[in-house]
């Protein structure tokens, strides 16, 4: 199984969630994060003083999935979350050794 971590632009969340649901992903976990990358923060002025907004709001999605779905999922995210403008984000793929569904105690792929 794989554990996919995707960093995307906040406004893309709904579209990505829908795209993933369509290809059969039934669960995912989202959180608010701040990203630092090529998309440089901008300079703002507050009371006459400049300040850098280095970290830019992003959404992080974590999705555990069966190996078979990996390519589909990565493709879907890469397609839907893409605006073509800098700061679109990244998809990270990690290996997932095991899963447990707490409610039932199911383990492994069945728990997804």
């Amino acid at each position, binding site marked *: 199984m794989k554990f996919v971590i995707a960093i995307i632009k906040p406004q893309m969340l709904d579209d990505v969630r829908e795209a993933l649901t369509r290809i059969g992903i039934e669960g995912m976990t989202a959180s608010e994060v701040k990203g630092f990358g090529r998309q440089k923060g901008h300079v*703002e*002025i*507050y*009371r*006459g*003083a*400049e*300040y850098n907004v280095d970290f830019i709001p992003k959404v992080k999605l974590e999705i555990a999935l069966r190996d078979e779905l990996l390519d589909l999922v990565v493709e879907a995210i890469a397609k839907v979350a893409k605006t073509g403008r800098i700061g679109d984000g990244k998809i990270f793929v990690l290996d997932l050794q095991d899963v447990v569904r707490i409610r039932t105690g199911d383990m492994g792929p069945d728990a997804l």
Partner: protein
Amino acid sequence: MTKKSLLLFFTVLLAIAAGPTFAQDAPAYPAATDASVFVFNTTLFLISGMVVMFMAAGFCMLEVGLVRAKNAATICVKNIALFSIAGIMVWLLGYNLIYGVAEGGFIGKFGIWGADDADWAQTGYAASSDWYFQMVFVATAASIVSGTVAERVKLWPFLIFVAALTGVIYPIQASWEWGGGWLDAKFAFADFAGSTLVHSTGGWAALAGALVIGARDGKYDQTGRVHAMPGSSLPLATLGTFILWLGWFGFNGGSQLALGSIDNAIAVAKIFVNTNMAAAAGVVTALVLTQLLYKKVDLTITLNGAIGGLVSITASPLEPSIGLAVLIGSIGGVIVTLAVPLLDKLKIDDVVGAIPAHLFCGIWGTLVVPLSDKSASLIGQLVGVVSIGVFVFTISFALWYLLKLTTGVRASEPDEQIGLDKAELGMEAYPEFSPA
């Protein structure tokens, strides 16, 4: 918008300030009965006093909105405590220091105040109503200080300073003018509602505090760069400003000190209008100026613009024509807009912009009085501004310094880093929302 439009803006303002004038003879007004006059005057003090009292809430909200969340509960403690301490000190010491001064004198009497209405016919108002009105003025001066030194001053030393300011420092200088002391007697110093006596006094005390206590950790770095520390709740800061604006009608209107006759009623009404127009002009000016300077409107400076306009008109809210009131307030707006970053250049860390709005605009408002009030002179005004400035600043500086040497005035670096709320109160202002 361009520099040209800036020029145009002020040209228009000036043209307007000249404005139409209305001949106004003094018709023979009939009088109300003695009792009615007494009740009217007393009511003026009480109602004006109530809205000025509410300014304590206004300052509290303005400050709580402009500090970072980690210091928000502490600024609330300071604001409600300072208003309470002001009441107690004005009772124990302040009032008799202000009004117990001999004509032309330098210092009043030390002693607890008690209401004495035996002389009602002469004063024309209830003694307690006057006390109440004066007390809330004193509290205002203390509120100014808390904003400047927020986010790093320790609670108890700050409250000690407030006790001294409201019990002794403010009363002594106020006695010079409003108590009939030397400034009033010898220099015909004119400060109707306290641009200097209240606002500059608070501002000087705040400046002294800012210098002794130093800037917030991380505000200015070695390379001279200023680091913005955005306020945590601009809506609350805006609410505070509206409350202050409301209170100012009482502040300036009540300073007419009498309502029970046709001319007094007309005067109070005129004061309301000028007060409002100066604030409005301060807002619009700060709005336009920040747009021109930074290409984006700055809400917090716009709020300061309202205060700056209000402080500027406070020394003489009755005499100016509306056009002049607009001009005076507008320049107040210019002052705050330019002085806020200027103070940062000087590495004087004034969290809420109280020094530009209260001290600088207080000076401006006081100096411009002779333009509309022919009984005042620029010299007299200068003497007042300088003498009160020197007095308040020196004593305040000495006191802050003494506190620094004894109790310490400044939270430790780790305390400042985790925020005074956790460090000094062991609570959080927004325990469920606060990041980190």
